[in-house]
């Protein structure tokens, strides 16, 4: 491979057939096709979701996004409680997972001995590969009882003046779903952030240290900002996973399409309601409304990803490092 690429400079003048024989063109064509498939699949997905949701789009229009009734029998479908539940659980998950995950990644990349770091990385990768239904089961049997008996009453007695921590403690609900999601996405954040931190060039650290910075100062002021883009990348990966997670959320969120200020209250997420109701949706309108929810989830992910990109651009303009690790 290396030899063919060294003969490239004269490529333009050589005949197409010659280049074809050397494999460059073939490789280019194939890899282009593979890359194009990604775009093509996204477009087809949106088209398919768009076509599959004609009935509710015509019947409800924009009201689909503002109404809160979900009644398969009366044929009334509103997406707001599901959008709310999806966003709230993802927000709770990230609030917990981001500080923990990045903290752990900093320790593993900067402070821990290499052997400890590599061993732990092995376990983290293992955690990332656990199927989500397993997390759901752990959620039902361990997290939910813990939440109901200890954590929610404790939160209620200390922070109960906030509307976030009021109401009966069922164990299932937004908070529990957020916590289970956090457990699920932490490995992603740690694993990606650690790689990014490790790839920060040595001379960056050495320069900071030679200027008299302590080890922590060099880590926090130089290495972490340098790796910022990559760390953001890990957070977006975690966000995408939180928004789309189905099984584990369906098992612990309480599956009740209501909007409540309290994190203890049961709620519902888009992915969970699709998984729960699609197989048994008997009316065409019900099925298509679930498909429209799929479209909403796609748009939600799209918008949040777009916002994330803007955030990266804005922050990297005013920071020192523009490392695209």
């Amino acid at each position: 491979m290396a030899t063919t690429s060294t003969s490239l400079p004269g490529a333009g003048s050589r005949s197409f057939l010659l280049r074809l024989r050397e494999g460059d063109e073939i490789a280019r064509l194939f890899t282009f096709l593979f890359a194009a498939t990604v775009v093509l699949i996204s477009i087809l997905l949106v088209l398919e979701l768009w076509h599959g949701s004609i009935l509710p789009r015509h019947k409800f229009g924009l009201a689909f996004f503002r109404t809160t009734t979900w009644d398969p029998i009366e044929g009334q479908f509103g997406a707001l409680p599901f959008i709310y539940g999806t966003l709230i659980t993802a927000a709770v998950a990230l609030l917990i997972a981001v500080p923990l995950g990045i903290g752990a990644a900093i320790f593993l990349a900067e402070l821990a001995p290499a052997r400890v770091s590599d061993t732990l990385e092995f376990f983290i990768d293992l955690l990332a590969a656990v199927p989500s239904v397993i997390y759901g089961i752990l959620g039902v049997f361990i997290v939910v009882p813990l939440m109901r008996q200890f954590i929610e009453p404790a939160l209620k007695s200390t922070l109960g003046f906030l509307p976030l921590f009021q109401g009966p403690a069922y164990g299932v609900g937004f908070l529990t779903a957020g916590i289970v999601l956090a457990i699920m996405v932490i490995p992603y954040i740690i694993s990606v952030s650690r790689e990014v931190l490790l790839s920060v060039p040595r001379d960056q650290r050495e320069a900071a240290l030679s200027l008299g910075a302590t080890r922590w100062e060099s880590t926090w002021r130089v290495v972490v900002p340098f790796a910022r883009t990559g760390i953001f990348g890990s957070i977006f990966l975690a966000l995408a996973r939180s928004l789309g997670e189905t099984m584990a959320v369906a098992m612990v969120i309480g599956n009740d399409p209501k909007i409540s200020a309290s994190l203890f209250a049961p709620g519902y997420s888009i992915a969970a309601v699709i998984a729960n109701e699609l197989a048994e949706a008997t009316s065409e309108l019900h099925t298509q409304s679930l498909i429209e929810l799929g479209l909403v989830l796609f748009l939600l992910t799209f918008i949040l990803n777009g916002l994330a990109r803007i955030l990266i651009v804005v922050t990297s303009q005013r920071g020192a490092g523009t490392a695209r690790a």
Partner: protein
Amino acid sequence: MRRVILGGLGLGLLAAAGLVAAQGALSINGAGATFPYPMYSKWFDEYHKKNPSLSINYQSIGSGGGIRQITEGTVDFGASDGPMNDEQLKTYQEKHGSAILHFPTVLGAVVPTYNIPGVDATLNFTPEALAGIFLGKVTKWNDPLITGPNQGVSLPASDIVVVHRADGSGTTYCWSDYLSKVSDEWKTKVGKGTSVNWPVGLGGKGNEGVTGTVKNTPNSIGYVELIYAEANKIPYGNVKNSAGVFVKASLAGVTAAAAGTAKDMPDDFRVSITDAPGKAAYPISTFTWLLIPAKFSDNAKRDALKGFVSWMLNDGQNFTEALSYARLPKEVIAKEKKALANIQ
């Protein structure tokens, strides 16, 4: 290397071809309800042993999926825990130019299960109490509607936590169908269906989700399939039937409910047997149906499927009780045998 891969591929293809040949000439595909799946797979397996040339494949994708697939024509037969409604029948008729027929296969029941700390007694539930609880109007365990038929049991003044199925299911269809029959308010406010707009409660996924939530949540009440409750030794309450008797769900009680409605059984078998007449009838019972096209283009498939249904109505019924399904009453079997002639 390439030769090895090609060789492997060729071997694989040969093996696949061999498997297909071994499976015999005819294979029939069906899809639908999950509730009767253990029964169906047992039947298809037994029938295949008797008729090695025929294999019936069944995917338990849910009643809604079964109705959709048979309407699309992607399977040879469907299966559902709730009968198809008139609109769905019309869609099928328009698409295929012929009707779809319902054949009851076995019976199931749904039972109320609860978890009240300190209460071990089997509770008696009136229809009014169940409807009130699930409408969110009866909110405390010591409500007179609950304590009335449970003299001698001391029920706490705690809030009732309602648990229902979150996933669309035939169990919910049966439960909401029953509540629609016994409560006008339920009928107008909520109605019946595989998924409904619940006035109150937490949603659990599947029978196991409901059971898990009820077990984990003090002072809760939910509903699960009788088979599931039996298999997992979950305590459940008695329900007052239309004759005024509190009945504990049992296979005999379910068959009695079906027999109670057999006299007025419509010719298309699309009948709900919830709140059935009869002293022994358990009121929250339901048929589950096979959905079979009235017209087949493939005669071999038609004959094979007719053969299976008539075997299922005779010998097949003997397998039901071992798997905790209630068998069909004699009257219904006789009527179904006649209806088999309508498949052409």
